[in-house]
């Protein structure tokens, strides 16, 4: 066992006397005069309820978090009165601009408000299983997306433990990302297993790529790689599935998933903007990170386990003429996904158009 109490409390006479005394009605009231600052948070807009923005007050607010959190390593609530002997819980991410984004508070509130439940919010009964190659393609595509969602769920979980509790709203957003991605693991798996084809094949290239993304060394790299880079492509994938859907159930599933992924992308963009505004020197290192890691989206979006089903879904069959039409869709899809990623990267101060080794296609 890693950590023990400083004493055996069962043999601590001082403790027993203290508790006995209190339970005899002699309260210490040591805490009674402790005040972090008297405030009264109120909803600024009753339709919206009491948001974290409404609680951004004085020493309690997120605006008051310093760039370097040097003296708080416990889980004591931000703004509460600290006492001596608070333990160090081992946080290793203590710099605000390593994690923060100006939109993260609103995105957290949005995530809760726009929650959905795959079991009941997708009209599963409208889907009919079939032997068609289209359904087989859908099963393969959903197998692939389940694989991606498993990784996207793990990325925030891997870091949240190490992030200082002062960044409460940001950590809460990471929790929202976790549940969003759990929802996607669930939804894509359920869709695959309603197809009549079972699950398809795991993707070697996508998993190699995903493992590289997941093992990013720093949180800014992990966020850039997963939220902005991977997120851009997964968002485009959801858009494509919604656009190619033949049933309301598939359109809804892909649209609802798209909304969730778009929040992660928005955080990724906001985070990089904030990070580079406060640590402009990091632009060089992050551009180099993208130089060496950007190739992973080719391993993902270019994997046959993703791309071939997309071509088939767009074609509707495996007839040669139809496949030509399907491949045109896929080319345009890839081109616009790369383009939107470049736009987002440029917007945060990481221009990629000239530097990127990702293939460009003539459409």
């Amino acid at each position, binding site marked *: 066992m890693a950590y023990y109490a400083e004493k055996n409390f069962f043999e601590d006479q001082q403790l027993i006397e203290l508790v006995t005394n209190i339970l005899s009605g002699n309260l210490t009231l040591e805490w009674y005069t402790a005040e972090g600052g008297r405030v009264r948070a109120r909803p600024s*807009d009753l*339709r*919206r309820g009491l948001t974290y923005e409404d609680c951004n007050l004085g020493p309690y607010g997120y605006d008051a978090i310093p760039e370097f959190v040097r003296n708080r390593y416990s889980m004591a609530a931000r703004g509460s009165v600290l006492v001596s002997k608070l333990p160090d819980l081992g946080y290793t991410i203590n710099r605000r601009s390593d994690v923060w984004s100006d*939109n993260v508070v*609103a995105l957290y*509130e*949005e995530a*809760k*408000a*726009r*929650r959905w439940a795959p079991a009941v919010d997708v009209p599963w009964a*409208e889907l009919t299983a079939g032997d068609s190659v289209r359904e087989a393609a859908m099963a393969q595509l959903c197998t692939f997306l389940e694989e991606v969602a498993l990784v996207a769920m793990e990325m925030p979980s891997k870091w949240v433990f190490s992030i200082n509790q002062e960044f409460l709203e940001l950590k809460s957003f990471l929790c929202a990302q976790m549940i969003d991605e759990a929802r996607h693991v669930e939804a894509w798996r359920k869709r695959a297993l309603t197809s009549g084809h079972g699950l398809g094949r795991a993707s070697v290239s996508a998993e190699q790529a995903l493992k590289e993304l997941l093992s990013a060394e720093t949180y800014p790299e992990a966020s850039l790689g997963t939220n902005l880079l991977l997120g851009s492509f997964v*968002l485009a994938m959801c*858009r*494509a599935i*919604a*656009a190619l*859907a*033949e*049933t*309301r159930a*598939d*359109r*809804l599933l892909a*649209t*609802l998933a*798209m*909304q969730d*992924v*778009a*929040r992660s*992308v*928005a955080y990724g*963009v*906001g985070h990089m903007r904030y990070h580079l505004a406060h640590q402009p020197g990091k632009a060089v290192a992050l551009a180099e990170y993208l130089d060496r890691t950007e190739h992973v989206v080719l391993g993902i979006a270019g994997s046959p386990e993703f791309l071939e089903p997309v071509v088939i879904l767009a074609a509707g069959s495996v007839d040669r003429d139809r496949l030509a039409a399907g491949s045109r869709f896929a080319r*345009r899809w890839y081109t*616009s996904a790369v383009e*939107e990623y470049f*736009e*987002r990267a440029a*917007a945060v101060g990481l221009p990629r158009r000239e530097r990127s080794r990702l293939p460009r296609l003539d459409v």
Partner: protein
Amino acid sequence: MPAVSAPPPLRFPSRDFFEALREAMRAERERFSRLGFFDTTFGVRISSDDGGEPAEFALRFEVFDCVGVESLAGVETDFVVEGPFAAWREMLDTIHALGAADTAHSLNTLTHFGEQLRVRYDDPDGHDKLYRFAESIQEFFDLSARLDFAYPDGSRPPAARAERQRSAR
């Protein structure tokens, strides 16, 4: 007793048309609350078939409501959805006939490659709100199925089909 004539149909495109959608959204508060916060201002631009001035409106959404319909000029928007009148008409005709857009006429499909409708934006952050609020935006336009409206040439969208089938199959 004087005869009471039915009010004239709304016109599309017009500010009144979007105001009516706004009212319909208000009546569906619970449905939109379930979809979640909806905070964006976006524009719609309907180009005229005859090369005339496009009809342009800004739609402002806050929390669960549409809080403003105004002229697009001078309004800062997250994105603008634009396209020829014929594309908008095709979308609205489908919605009116089926009760909601089918998969071939959802806003996402129509804007996907910018063939029928295009999305214009200055900042990718604003653009991404089209995706973040995709289902709310779709359901907002789907409310047009309930409106009595006519196009500039006086023609009407098709009547609702008895059995509404929204899949493209």
